């Protein structure tokens, strides 16, 4: 059975020019790329400073997403009263449920529930920082000098443990996390950048996600660029031993670096939850991809991770277009890997990587 070729129809809608389609796909790509970039950023930061290949990083993204699930569940904890008159279909008294938040705080409670996803950031930051620090102190620290294969195995084991715990607690099904009412609509992005109104409209939340990612990435860069802490970390990435020789307690800083990487991944997960309903397997789905992103960007290169994330996101979007798939069937299935192969062969150190990192 040969798959039917995709029947293609050109955009004949009034005003739907090639430029708009192009722009929409760029937006799609940037959005996807934002998530890739944020995960890859932490991954490459950990690799660059600690020299650890962290296969549990996807799980950190997943934990972040579940921060928002947890907060939402907490806020919507319900007061359960048994109805005296109504019965369920299986003959037990019907439960009448009212969320405590609403019961106690009225409209404000409802508003908090509505905004639970962005509000989870407040929980996610301390929580992920804690997770990161505990992980580094308790486990990763002892693996600095161990071979990469063992780092991979132990972090992979940890990733499985984390996701199984989440599964035992929240089940395997995706759990929907709606964006705040005010941000669920569409925004006329085209008009905002001076094009004709109505052609490039895009979901508001996705634009928020992109801006959020830009802010987080910007904050990480600024932090590394303008603080002493950042300076030491950057120096450590360049030459770990020398920095150690300077008598600076690099270990403490590396613990915090790991924490920061965990927070970035977690935040990426929190805000992604309205786009992709969180499920326990989310981390594994992103893990391989984010590794590809890191390597394409250049191991240990922060700008490389961001650039590669965006690039792969955009390429993935374009490869999915009917026009492209009509020429190369199935290209959207493999584009990321194809790009990775081409880049690694043409430019082994990745887009922005330094030479010789992790070679053998």
């Amino acid at each position, binding site marked *: *059975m*040969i*798959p039917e070729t995709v029947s293609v129809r050109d955009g004949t809608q009034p005003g739907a020019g090639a430029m708009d389609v192009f722009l929409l796909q760029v937006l799609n790509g940037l959005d996807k790329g934002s998530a890739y970039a944020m995960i890859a950023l932490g991954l490459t930061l950990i690799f660059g400073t600690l020299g650890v*290949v962290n296969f549990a990083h996807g799980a950190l993204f997943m934990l972040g997403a579940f921060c928002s699930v947890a907060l939402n569940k907490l806020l919507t904890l319900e007061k359960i009263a048994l109805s005296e008159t109504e019965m369920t279909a299986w003959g037990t008294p019907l439960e009448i449920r009212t969320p405590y938040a609403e019961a106690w705080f009225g409209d404000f409670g409802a508003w908090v529930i509505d905004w639970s996803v962005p509000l989870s950031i407040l929980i996610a930051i301390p929580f992920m920082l804690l997770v990161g620090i505990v992980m580094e102190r308790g*486990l990763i620290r*002892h693996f600095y000098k*161990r071979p*990469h*294969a*063992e780092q*991979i*195995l*132990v972090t*992979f*084991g*940890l*990733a*499985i*443990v984390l*996701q*199984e*715990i989440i599964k*035992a607690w929240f089940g395997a099904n995706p759990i929907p996390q709606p964006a705040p009412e005010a941000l669920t609509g569409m925004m006329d992005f085209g008009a905002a950048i001076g094009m004709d109104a109505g052609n490039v409209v895009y979901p508001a939340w996705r634009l928020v996600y992109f801006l959020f990612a830009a802010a987080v990435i910007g904050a990480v860069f600024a932090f590394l660029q303008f603080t002493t802490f950042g300076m030491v970390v950057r120096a450590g990435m360049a030459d770990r031993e020398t920095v150690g020789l300077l008598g600076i307690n690099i270990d403490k800083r590396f613990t915090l670096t790991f924490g920061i990487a965990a927070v970035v991944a977690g935040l990426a997960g929190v805000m992604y939850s309205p786009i992709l309903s969180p499920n326990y397997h989310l981390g*594994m789905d992103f893990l*391989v991809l984010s*590794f*590809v992103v890191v*390597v394409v960007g250049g*191991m240990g290169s922060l700008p490389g991770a961001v650039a590669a994330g965006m690039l792969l996101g955009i390429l993935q979007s374009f490869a999915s277009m009917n026009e492209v798939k009509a020429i190369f*069937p*199935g290209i959207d*299935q*493999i584009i990321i*890997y*194809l790009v*990775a*192969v081409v880049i*690694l*062969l043409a430019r*082994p150190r990745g887009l922005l990587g330094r030479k010789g990192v*992790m*070679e*053998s």
Partner: protein
Amino acid sequence: MTVEQSKKDKIMVIGVVLAVLLGPIILNPFGAGYPDLLQKFVIYGIFAIGFNILFGLTGYLSFGHAAFLGVGSYSAVWMFKLLSMNIVPAIILAMVISGLFALLIGFIALRRSGIYFSILTLAFAQMSYNLAYSVLTPITNGETGLQILHGDPRVLDAAVEDGALPVTNLFGLNMNATADVSLLGMDIQFNAGYYICGLIMIVAFYIALRLFRSPFGMMLKAIKTNQNRLNFTGVNSRPYTLTAFVISGIYAGLAGGLLACTDPLAGAERMQWTASGEVVLMTILGGAGTMLGPILGAGVIKYFENIFSAYNESELMDVFSFLPHWLQELVVSVSSLFVGEGWHLTLGVLFMLIVIFLPGGLMEGFNRLVKLARGGYRKDGASASAAGKVTAE
């Protein structure tokens, strides 16, 4: 060293032969003595032995070996469909095709080393998987997996009875032929497919052992330690790594072919990155670079996957029925987290424990036990000689 070494090797080979021959009896009390799992043990043993030739010796960590396993399976099933249900042509084709595929991927991927090599192999395997699942469905039968059908040509075989599917065989000996024997109060199943695969594993093990002890193996070990230095010593390391890559690809293809021989269905998931990861885990879990480790690792992981996942709460209740009721409930509710649907959790915890406490894998644990036993013995003053001069194999 050499005499000691070759004596140890002999013991090892004899041990493996005995383990394979007695497998159905030894493993029966552990609930693993049924043909399918026994076959999986030896087949994944072959897969891991082959992977160890690459990873254990050269240190090149391939994250795409499942692709060769899958290619081997597909080749074998196509042979069953087109030529004959005899497993010999299927196995040969599986090895040839996977070897060629490994040559192609190895030629490209070995241009890089370290994690770049890993990502390249991963990328090739994922492309293979994604395409096999979707676009290549005419060849792979996609999600359902490639199966033999009644109407397949099978030009060498006589027509089968109406409505029945032919069975894979070795010159007439059916792979699914099983003899049930009551022995020591157990119902032991001696299965032809298991013994055929087991014999092939013994051969594969012996070849790997020869390889480990050969100058070629020595060069591979040197590559792992210091590839640059080796080049300055006048050795061209690339063809060595490529040969190792192809050999381990052929092993994987052989394993894939045998999977199809024992169960003529080839599914695309066999090529997914998690499957590639599995063989990495088997090898490291057992002990990379050791001879027996990978077989051990393969056994442990397959055991967990097949036995731990099969426990359900009522069976647990039976297991712990000797406890007082309240304790029984508690123990069952805790332990049920780790079996049945929680078997992944057990696996994850196991990985962590092994890597943290036994970095050399199960074989290291085994060696430590041996050392401990010997050490205790020596303290008694019975042995004064340097018996403890254990060199890493």
